[in-house]
């Protein structure tokens, strides 16, 4: 990889100043970025490490109705800290990659990268999460802009993510065994009568909400309520691991499983 300079800020404002420099790039846990640097898919002149920013670390259960996660918090920390208050989110975090990856990879890194097969975007969309940056708050519905694209500006930093805790929730992940990313993952959340269904791994446009399933499940929260639905394979990902038709099929199957598991 090309060489680069480092900055090690200890506060969000120091990090934001460092990231304002030309060619600067934030480094979370590095589980995607470091392999990308090796392949020279990224060549920043300055890496700004976020791990030393205490105000961006940790998990708070806020007023019993939200899990608030610092942007530089690892998946392993979320898996353990949210286990009682939001088991579906904890399960999602505890099944990303493998244990060594979960000890490094961070929530903020995952959401900033917005890999189309990452798990966290599904949780963020299904719960209506709020993504807080160093200068604003972005609702999940406004945040995801397509494959590897987000609403973040150049140099903007995810400081905290607030996940509202649903009345019922479940995440189903059909794992691509080599990468351990989701071939398809579906997060179902129910708040009162309102059901939300978010799908990752399937669409060429990144994680999305399946509106027809949400409408059906908001009227009747049972897997039978979506049995007559189908989802179009247009714009679904196709690769050697699965066709677009297969991913469309998995989307419905996993949604039904998630509803059954959450009911």
């Amino acid at each position, binding site marked *: 990889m090309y060489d680069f300079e480092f900055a090690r800020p200890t506060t969000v404002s120091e990090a934001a100043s460092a990231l304002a420099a030309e060619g600067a790039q934030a480094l979370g846990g*590095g589980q995607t970025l470091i392999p990308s640097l090796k392949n020279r898919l990224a060549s920043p002149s300055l890496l700004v490490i976020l791990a030393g920013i205490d105000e961006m670390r940790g998990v708070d259960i806020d007023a019993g109705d939200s899990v608030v996660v610092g942007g530089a918090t690892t998946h392993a920390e979320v898996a353990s800290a949210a286990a009682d208050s939001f088991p579906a989110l904890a399960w999602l975090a505890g099944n990303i990659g493998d244990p060594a*990856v979960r*000890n490094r990879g961070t929530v903020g890194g995952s959401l900033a990268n917005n890999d189309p097969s990452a798990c966290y975007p599904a949780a963020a969309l299904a719960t209506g999460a709020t993504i807080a940056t160093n200068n604003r708050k972005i609702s999940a519905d406004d945040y995801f802009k397509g494959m590897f694209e987000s609403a973040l500006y150049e140099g903007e930093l995810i400081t905290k993510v607030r996940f509202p805790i649903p009345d019922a929730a479940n995440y189903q992940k059909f794992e691509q065994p080599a990468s351990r990313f989701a071939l398809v993952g579906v997060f179902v959340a129910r708040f009162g009568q309102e059901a939300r269904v978010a799908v990752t791994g399937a669409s060429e446009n990144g994680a999305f909400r399946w509106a027809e399933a949400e409408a059906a499940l908001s009227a009747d929260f049972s897997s039978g309520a979506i049995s007559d639905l189908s989802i179009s394979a247009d714009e679904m990902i196709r690769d050697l691991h699965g066709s677009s038709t297969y991913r469309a099929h998995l989307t419905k199957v996993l949604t039904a499983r998630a509803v059954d598991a959450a009911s």
Partner: protein
Amino acid sequence: METVNLIVNGSAFSGEVEGRKLLSDFLREDLRCTGTHVGCDTGQCGACVVHVGGKAVKSCSMFAWEADGMEVATIEGMADEESLGDIQQAFQDSHALQCGFCTPGMVMSAAALLDENPNPTDAEIRDYLEGNLCRCTGYHNIVKAIRSVAERRASAGAA
């Protein structure tokens, strides 16, 4: 160059390291701890697993200076001068290795698992080894070795 201070297997190290140097390369080239293996160098195979701050990490997917101020444990720290550590001994006893390339990472992952969960089920052992690939023996004897360590430690603790 970046200045790093870290403790590797109980010994303090202080010195300069190039910013882009990976922890795996630093351990192997600068400290000559060549027991940490680099298999895929992409974070998939787990041969390079070491402990940083008591947690299993892939040393090919972090920079050496990110371990600044931390304690690092590698496979070299698992044995004393006289004998193998109990996990290493169990791997030998159970024939849990063939070529041995993946073994350092397997042992370090197993050690982290048993720290977190002293009495894992077979399913939990297999789940924890998800990021450690073995291309020779298969995983059966590795699981057996780790289970035997858990059992031996439990009976030693109870005695």
